């Protein structure tokens, strides 16, 4: 089912493996990418319902991904959860203005928390 598709775009392998594993265990169809540009290509192909998006990544930053993926237009039904270790309020505001649904600071959440959040968004 298209709505159950979750994509994780994250360049930190430890985090990527943990979150992708947990989400798969919970029954989501998970695809992953380790940089913004690869993530953009895959997202266009896969059309996930939720994307966990890191910000500081090679090739294409999270902010650039939000602009390129046309989150406020063509892909407005896709929920983007920015998941970053940057907590600068200016960056938070920027991402929300670019169409992100949520902005979460990684160190404050566990994979369990994320399952709850994704379930809530995908309902």
């Amino acid at each position, binding site marked *: 089912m298209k709505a159950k598709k979750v994509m994780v775009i994250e360049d*930190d392998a*430890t*985090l990527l493996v*943990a*979150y992708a*594993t*947990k989400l798969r*265990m919970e029954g989501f169809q998970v695809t992953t990418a380790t940089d913004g540009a690869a993530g953009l290509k895959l997202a266009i192909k896969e059309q996930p319902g939720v994307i966990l998006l890191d910000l*500081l990544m090679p090739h294409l930053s999270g902010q650039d991904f939000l602009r390129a993926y046309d989150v406020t237009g063509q892909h407005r039904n896709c929920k983007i959860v920015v998941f*970053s*270790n*940057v*907590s*600068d309020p200016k*960056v938070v505001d920027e991402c929300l203005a670019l169409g992100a649904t949520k902005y979460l*600071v*990684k*160190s*404050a959440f*566990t*994979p*369990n928390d994320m399952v709850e959040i994704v379930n809530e968004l995908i309902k």
Partner: protein
Amino acid sequence: MKSQTSEAFYRSLFENALDGFAYCQMLFDKSGNPIDFRYIKVNENFEKLTGLKEAEGRKATELIPGIKTSNPELFEIYGRVALTGKPERFETYIEPLGRWFFVSVYSPKKKFFMAVFQNITGRKGAERNLENEKIATRNVLEDLSVEESKYEALTKDLEKFKLALENVSDNMIITDPEGIVIYANKAVEKVTGYKPEEAVGRKSGALWKTPMPVEYYQKLWDTVKKQKRVFTGEIQNRRKNGEVYTAAISITPILDDKNEVEFFVSIERDITIEKEVDLAKSEFVSLASHQLRTPVSGIKATLAMLVGGDLGPLNALQQQFAERAYQANEREIKLIEDLLSVTRVESGRMTLEPQLADLGQLVQDILADHATFFKQHGQKLLVRLPRRPVRSWVDPDKLRLVIDNLVDNARKYTPDGGTITVAVRRLGTSILLSVADTGIGIPRQDQSKLFQKFSRVASNPPGSPDGTGLGLYLVKRIVEMHHGRVTVRSARGRGSTFTVRLPYHERQP
């Protein structure tokens, strides 16, 4: 010359001369002192020059009453000449006649004298006028020299003042009310690249080709020209070479007696480097926070799955170790968060963003995050909120940090089964927010250092939970940013009560 001819000649000369002639007989007292003289013969001009009529045959004291008192020297001179025959010349002012005379006197025979005189009143007047003018001129010159010395002193002061202006490191520009530069000091060239002579006479805004928005200038002119108040702010201007620089600016309108703007004094300090350093610091904190959080986030996610059984069942010992590792990592995360908050507070980058918030609701939200811990440790939580919500202008995110730290401490230092009481109430113009526990308490000697950075209670019993030593320091700083204060009441073994008193703002302060 025959004597008759010569007599006729002298007579003619006597009659027709322009000078006054008077031939007189000197009169002496018994002791031989000159006391008066009698006019024997006078010419026509005598009358004209003296104004005295029918003088011949009369005594001087009769003809000119008061002369003896006013001109005693006249009698002495005439007497002397009449006796000695030695001619004398003198100038005299005959007060009863109100005239000046130049007199030449000689004696053709003993006890007789001939006075030949000119009326010099006009010349004397001119001389007096001249003298008066001289005095007046001297006075004026003296006044001038006083003025001059004042002027010199003022000029010297101005020179000193100018020298001071010239050499201050801040840009200093004086403009007329229209913004045309009339003075620029040396620093202007150093900062902008424009020589003072290039700046003078040109409109200041046009000169720097400033990239500021129009609204900025509207506000600036409105402040200094309409409201006639000092304008301070940050401005971006362009140097002569096109480079943009940031400056802290202060423009003061100088008003005349009629309260009209006479000129503007603008002082600018180039803060480009400070700004760059500030930005670099800010970027460093942002980058550091990212770099510090990245590994602990990975550890957290991995251990959370391990502890949660996502990766298969663990035996009791494995579970215990995994949980310890998870908690150690959580402390690391807390330390990083506190350090970052302290850095933000101390560098002035933590600013309040106040909004109208329901403080009771805020407390309940925070307590919900701690609910699992209270349950696990059998701690009783009492929440006392007023019936009517307390809504005030605060920064809820920052205040969350305050309440969270206080609740976190309370539950950590309270043994299992203890009670934690959180209360919010309004007291007049204040809001009181308190967190009380039945924990181990803080000895009096440690209380004064409690809110200092990295301060730990030295006398805590072994096995007491670890803290970063930053939590209460942050609490104090954030409460102070809200213009409030935080206090503690505690005794060893009798629990602690932390009270935060904040000003109540129903409307935006």
